[in-house]
């Protein structure tokens, strides 16, 4: 299984998202072609209802703790409730350009 699939599976199991985007952004970074080191996720789930941003991100990080220990280097997260997703979507959710620090 690729890391992309593994991330999708773990987030689905842990957070039962009504919408989930998992994008491998590793090609934008200073890592070999085909790497699975940098990911961006949009997670829409009603488990985020009533939680602040830090706690929402903690839920996502916790679901992916094993991946983060095993070479998932960067994880950019947008964690929304279904109501927020319907009202706003995830506009302007773009990762910044790489500055090459991954190898340091």
């Amino acid at each position: 299984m690729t890391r992309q699939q593994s991330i999708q599976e773990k987030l689905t199991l842990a957070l039962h998202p009504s919408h989930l985007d998992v994008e491998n952004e590793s090609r934008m970074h200073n890592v070999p072609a085909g790497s699975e080191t940098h990911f961006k996720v949009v997670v829409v789930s009603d488990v985020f209802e009533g939680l602040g941003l830090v706690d929402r991100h903690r839920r996502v990080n916790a679901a992916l703790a094993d991946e983060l220990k095993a070479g998932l280097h960067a994880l950019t997260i947008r964690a929304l409730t279904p109501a927020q997703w319907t009202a706003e979507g995830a506009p302007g959710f773009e990762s910044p350009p790489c500055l090459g620090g991954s190898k340091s």
Partner: protein
Amino acid sequence: MSDAKKTIQDTVEQNRVVLFMKGTKNFPQCGFSQRAVAILKECKAEFKDVNVLSDPAIRQGVKDYSSWPTIPQVYIDGKFVGGSDILNEMYQSGELQKLLNPAS
């Protein structure tokens, strides 16, 4: 308490705003760290930068300190506020400006 934990605790207690980052505020070495610097500068915040690339014990220590697996990390008034995604969302919503400048 480990030396790294003590150093981190002292740093966040002695400086109102602290950014643990890859590189320095003048020479960020990661896009996410650069974005955090840009947002804090945009808010006209005085902040202390700590380059985790120059100290492996701090790099790991700050992840343990707030149980947060990624860098950058922002602390305001001794409290963990979030990483680059959260800082960005709080900046977009105006919440960050209020937290940094409670009087205005």
